């Protein structure tokens, strides 16, 4: 109980808030220097940041415990602070079960997968099934991953400290190629690769979207870095993309997409319009018009953001509860009293 009292004290709350403030000030400064994805990977999406938020949750939970059994005067206090607990839970729910990605659909075309903010390295011989090496985005720098390419096999086997060795057959021998991957951050995602065919080491920096062919004496190897792809339970066809400009300029005033959504299981079609600020809700997913590509050669394309955020309702309810409680706390007669310090 002594510990609960300590953790539930205002002093603890103040310290935990001040430390969070300093932490966030540092992280926004880092963001300005090193880019958004740097801080996302190094701060906001790390486990220790989650643990820190959990600490805040425990702190507020204890402030409630300390006041038990509740009296009438505690009502507004409880409403406010339960709201904060709910808000943090909603955030947890979203980060655990939430999905976010984007899809680019050309006019007249359709897509049923989305790209997510993770990267994968594709390695293959020409006309062979490719090996996909997923790059964990929580880790800024991956431990060196070795992959050996065996020209005799149909697939590229992989060995690494993390990967399951049983899954890929390791084929040692003279005729093998070693691939080392080093993940680097340089504005956008990039990897440094080193390919060793036993005679020569080929070094190359691969950026997101790049594809390169390396001519080893055992044959050509194609390497590509792209964002990870995730299947969706529906397919989205872009019928038409419309962009309306402010008259006499090329500044867009609005843009919208006419789409047809097809459910893969039920095979049901529905015609919809998605525009800026008017997303489409479909089976737990929200599809947003986030951008567009206008290209005379390949036709227009829409960029959609696809998101599944299960915690949002809880976050909304909690926020309303926080403000209701805070309002009552600040503007009821008792709390309006002047303080004697």
């Amino acid at each position, binding site marked *: 109980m002594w510990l609960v009292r300590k953790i539930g004290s205002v002093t603890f709350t*103040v310290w935990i808030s001040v430390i969070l403030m300093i932490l966030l000030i540092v992280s*926004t400064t880092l*963001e300005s220097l090193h880019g*958004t994805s740097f801080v996302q990977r190094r701060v906001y999406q790390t486990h220790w940041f989650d643990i820190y938020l959990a600490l805040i949750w425990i702190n507020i939970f204890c402030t409630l415990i300390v006041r038990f059994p509740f009296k009438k005067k505690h009502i507004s206090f409880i409403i406010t602070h339960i709201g904060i607990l709910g808000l943090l839970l909603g955030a947890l729910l979203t980060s655990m079960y939430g999905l976010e990605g984007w899809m680019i659909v050309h006019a007249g075309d359709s897509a049923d997968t989305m790209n997510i903010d993770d990267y994968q390295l594709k390695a293959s011989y020409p006309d062979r099934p490719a090996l996909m090496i997923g790059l964990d985005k929580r880790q800024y720098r991956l431990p060196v991953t070795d992959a050996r390419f065996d020209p005799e096999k149909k697939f590229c086997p992989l060995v690494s400290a993390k990967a399951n060795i049983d899954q890929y057959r390791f084929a040692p021998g003279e005729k093998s190629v070693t691939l080392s991957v080093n993940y680097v951050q340089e504005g956008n995602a990039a990897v440094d690769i080193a390919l060793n065919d036993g005679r020569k080491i080929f070094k190359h920096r691969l950026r997101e979207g790049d594809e390169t062919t390396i001519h080893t004496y055992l044959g050509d190897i194609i390497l590509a870095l792209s964002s990870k792809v995730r299947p969706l339970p529906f397919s989205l066809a872009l019928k038409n993309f419309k962009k309306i400009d402010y008259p006499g300029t090329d500044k867009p005033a609005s843009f919208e997409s006419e789409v047809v959504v097809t459910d893969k299981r039920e095979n049901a079609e529905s015609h919809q319009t998605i525009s800026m600020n008017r997303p489409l809700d479909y089976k737990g997913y929200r599809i947003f018009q986030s951008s567009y590509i206008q290209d005379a050669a390949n036709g227009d394309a829409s960029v959609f953001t696809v998101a599944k*955020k299960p915690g949002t309702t809880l*976050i909304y309810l909690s926020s309303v509860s926080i403000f209701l409680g*805070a309002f009552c706390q600040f503007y009821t007669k008792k709390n309006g009293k002047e303080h004697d310090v």
Partner: protein
Amino acid sequence: MKKIFSTIGIILLMGGLLCKVPCAFASDAAQLISQIPIQHEGRMKSFDVFARETLRQLAGKETWQKEPASLFIFKHLAHPRELLQIPLVRLDNLPLKDHLGLPADRKYFSYMELKPSLNELTALAASGQKKRDDDLKPTQLEQKAEFLYKQMVTLDKLIVGELLQVIPPDGKGRAWSTPKEAANPLAAQFRQLTTLYAAGQETEFVHQTGQWIKETARYLSPHTIKTIRLENVYYRIKAFRMAWILYLIAFIALVTGRPLLRKIGYGALAAGLIYHSLGLILRCLILSRPPVSNMFESMIFMNWILMVSAVIYFLVKKVDYLLEAGALASVLVMIYADLLPIERSLGVLVPVLRSNYWLTLHVLTVVSSYGIFGLCMALGHRQLFLSALGRIDAQQEKLSAHLIYRLIQAGVIALGVGTFLGGIWANESWGRFWGWDPKETWALITFLGYMVVVHLRATNKLNNFWVAACSLLGFLLVLMTWYGVNFLLGKGLHSYGFGSGGTQWVLCYLIFELFFLVFVFIKKYAKPGIYRA
């Protein structure tokens, strides 16, 4: 009696200022030129407004050698190549001048003087853009180069006549064209106008321009015509400049404390607030949207909330110093807004900001909280200053600190609700409620900062001195959220509000604040026991 004085004050002040308006034009010709409709940056404007905005972008002012912008630009339309030699482009940044090999002691440069360094400039601007594309921050030099590059482009377009979209289109909703590209008789007619004016044939010019305005009005909807007129009024009355002058008068009159002067002070303050509101209303009417899109608008609105909350709390609490502190803070913010070389024109919105009422509520609430925190900051300065001089007794200090605390509570709720509304908007537009975007993160930092103050005060852990000191420190966080994220960090999704400029003034404020805090802390703690409540 008080009412009579205030009313007289308002009438005198308003009357005196409105008299100025008709004298703004030297001649019929000038009057007519300013009315010619033109399409500029996606909106129909009057030639007057177009000229002011263009000259402001180039030279940072709205007159050229005492000649109004509209006359200056119109005069050169017939022979635009003369503009090549006129040192129109303002360039203050020393490192950039140095980099381009331009003399450091001059402020204004002509197109021809800048032309040799165009390659250099393009390279700098391109590398800045490249960095933006790669999600990195351009250097100060690159940002200045980008700005200068845009000035050059504008001047270039003005000289070749691409900016001059004055010829009405054939069909509705189409873009207006320039006299160069339009093949219809109207283009020839417009060229005739410019030649007449350049040749000084005033009678003929006045006659033909009158006709031109009547002719083009057929292509405009009644709503557009009304908007153009309102915008002319908006630019001519300079509502915000009048407002801060009146606030300054009010502040001086109120501080003296004499009964008669105080009444004038009330009157001036009310007149200032009327001008301020008028300016805001005109902006809303012209643009058919609330003032939410750029730094200038948010500063003016923040200030308006600051004054309105000062007046409301004054009416409830009946303490004059609310008005004094509010008026002084407003004067400073508005002078700053006036001085700042930021985008102040009435621009069109990017799609994500259009027609969304969550956004409107979000920005208005958040900026309101800045206004309330601004008032706290002003009151905090007053309290600390008086207490450092020993001119405030314990009872008064307690009252003042309590007032600040109550205002902070109101501000915290406004900031919290505003940020939450922003989250709803983000969820509607980008698909997530919270994403640790710098603006969001800084709003949270500010919120946490003021929450700490509220928690400490509510549990009697913060004395009167510290409440006032925290109102100052808290406002530094507000400043970072509001200005710093957009202008210093320059990162994240709130990119439509990015820019640079005015940094030196913010720095002045920071240095002043530092000295002020050191001063009051020394006064408070160097002689223990004397000033402690």
